[in-house]
């Protein structure tokens, strides 16, 4: 199907809806993300921010609408197939393997040997080790490779999960509140990290911390009651009277 599109977006969401027991968590939502863009989604609690990410990564099935990623329809794919297509997802609470070391956490996320037989035959060769070390350096955990993930600090766990996404080399990373619970210095480092990341990836971030949003965002989308309330640069969104009323005002 060669439908000419006005512009080649990396991700285009059109007419997306999902309802839980009659409640429309996302309602006829359309959203476009370009390549190498950092898009921040903000909005009050219950606006449907996390649900949008869940829909993109296949955790929740859409009732209506389409999500196209580089021309591939994602709504029909299963979770791991969406990952293979190039979409990575970080959860709100750091979701890492506590019983494994930092190295093993990253190694399991390395995109090779993902089938049963592949996993049995997987060998930890130089390529894997180099890549793990490279990523560990980026996420400030180079000196903690042999540490059990369980004893990392909260901020380090967040970084580790970001690293687990990076090692998959996804084209699109989706981060749900990556700086929640981080100290000020950790936030600054995370902003730095994100700025390195976007040289090669597009990123969708959900965030509440306005200072952080201003530091990183190219464009901001404000969600409210499952719909886009406003979209544009941080400056524009901040001065939008509708946004002030529902969200930023208090």
């Amino acid at each position, binding site marked *: 199907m060669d439908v000419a599109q006005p512009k080649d977006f990396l991700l285009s969401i059109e007419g997306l809806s999902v309802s839980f027991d009659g409640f429309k968590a996302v309602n006829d939502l359309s959203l476009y993300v370009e390549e190498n863009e950092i898009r921040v989604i903000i909005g009050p609690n219950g606006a449907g921010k996390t649900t949008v990410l869940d829909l993109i990564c296949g955790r929740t099935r859409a009732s209506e609408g389409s999500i196209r990623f580089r021309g591939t329809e994602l709504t029909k794919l299963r979770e791991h197939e969406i*990952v293979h297509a190039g979409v990575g997802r970080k959860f709100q609470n750091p979701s890492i393997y506590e019983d494994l070391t930092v190295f093993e956490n990253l190694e*399991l996320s390395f995109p090779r040997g993902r089938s049963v037989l592949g*996993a049995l035959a997987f060998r930890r060769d130089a390529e894997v080790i180099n890549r793990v070390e490279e990523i560990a350096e980026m996420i400030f955990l180079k000196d903690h490779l042999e540490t059990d993930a369980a004893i990392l600090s909260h901020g380090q766990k967040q970084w580790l999960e970001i690293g687990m996404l990076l090692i998959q080399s996804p084209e699109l990373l989706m981060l749900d509140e990556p700086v929640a619970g981080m100290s000020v210095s950790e936030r600054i480092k995370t902003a730095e990290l994100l700025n390195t990341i976007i040289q090669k990836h597009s990123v969708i971030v959900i965030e509440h911390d306005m200072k952080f949003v201003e530091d990183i965002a190219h464009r901001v989308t404000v969600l409210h009651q499952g719909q886009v309330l406003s979209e544009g640069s941080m400056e524009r969104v901040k001065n939008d009277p509708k946004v002030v009323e529902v969200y930023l005002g208090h």
Partner: protein
Amino acid sequence: MSPALFLFRKREWISFAILAFILVVVFPTLFDNFRLNLIGKYLTYSFVALGLVLCWGYGGILSLGQGIFFGLGGYCMAMFLKLEASTPEATAIQSTPGIPDFMDWNQLTSLPFWWQPFHSFTFTLFATIAVPVALAFIISVAMFKRRVGGVYFAIITQAIAAILTILIIGQQGYTGGVNGITDLRTLLGWDIRSDNARYVFYFICVALLLASLLLAQFVRVSKFGRLLIAMRDKEDRVRFSGYDVANFKIFIFCLSAALSAIGGAMFTLQVGFMSPSFVGIVPSIEMVIFCAVGGRLSIFGAVYGALLVNAAKTSLSETFPELWLFAMGGLFIAVVMVFPEGVAGLFRQHVEPLITRGISLVRIGKVRKPRPTAE
């Protein structure tokens, strides 16, 4: 984790060697044929416990129905042996000679078609593994593809164990009913009840067990083993790292079924019969207890757990038969509350540090020795 040593680390190779030494040398020299046969019977349960270490300990999939696979493996072997024992000459007094005695008692006049292939030993060896694995595959595909897990999976496996028992007992004419398949005599013309045969079966059982340990270790140290731990911990994260989680669960469940089936077949050969009392809920839960007592994260613990609990069961039920169930319940509570990592955990916590200290003392001693001469 140096790749120089194959499969095991140095310390694990020592554990493996010690276990092999105990099974191959110590037990056969220490015990008479009767006791050795008994140990061989206990060892058949360690195959099940080993499967549970992988499936439950590492993968977090609790199966309360391993008796299903143990039983099916055992029944496949028993069917072959029964057919061999039911020659027309040996069953001449029956109204239909040439079919197993229980079929004759139940007014069957010909061998059911699905018994026919069990005339072949090759087919039987194949079916011993294939039948239980096929059932495990069906169960696990149905469950895991629909993302049924945890307690629900445990309950369903338990229900299937109950169903299979009822089915076996109910279809007396085809299965031998509650008595099971008994009066097994020869394997390819060789009397399985002779001392000689029992001796040989013990060593076959040990060899298979050691091979299974190596196989389990191969899975454990591969990336698959780390994925099992990851799935137990954060299943969603594994899924969103690009793995089809259900496939991994199906594989490990089928592998544990295959191990149980080998145990079941060796049980039939060494004990000389198979009955529904090794299939149902109670034996299946006992198997989980063997694994828990041994230590659900230790492949060697599985073997020791099965040996210890069964030895305790035999000696206790010889003297106080009615006490055994209470002892079993108490044991399970003790494992959960006092030593959740089982015997292997106790060993790791209390004995291993002593050994390490001992070794380092000896080493220091060696270094110090030349000193007096220098002074």
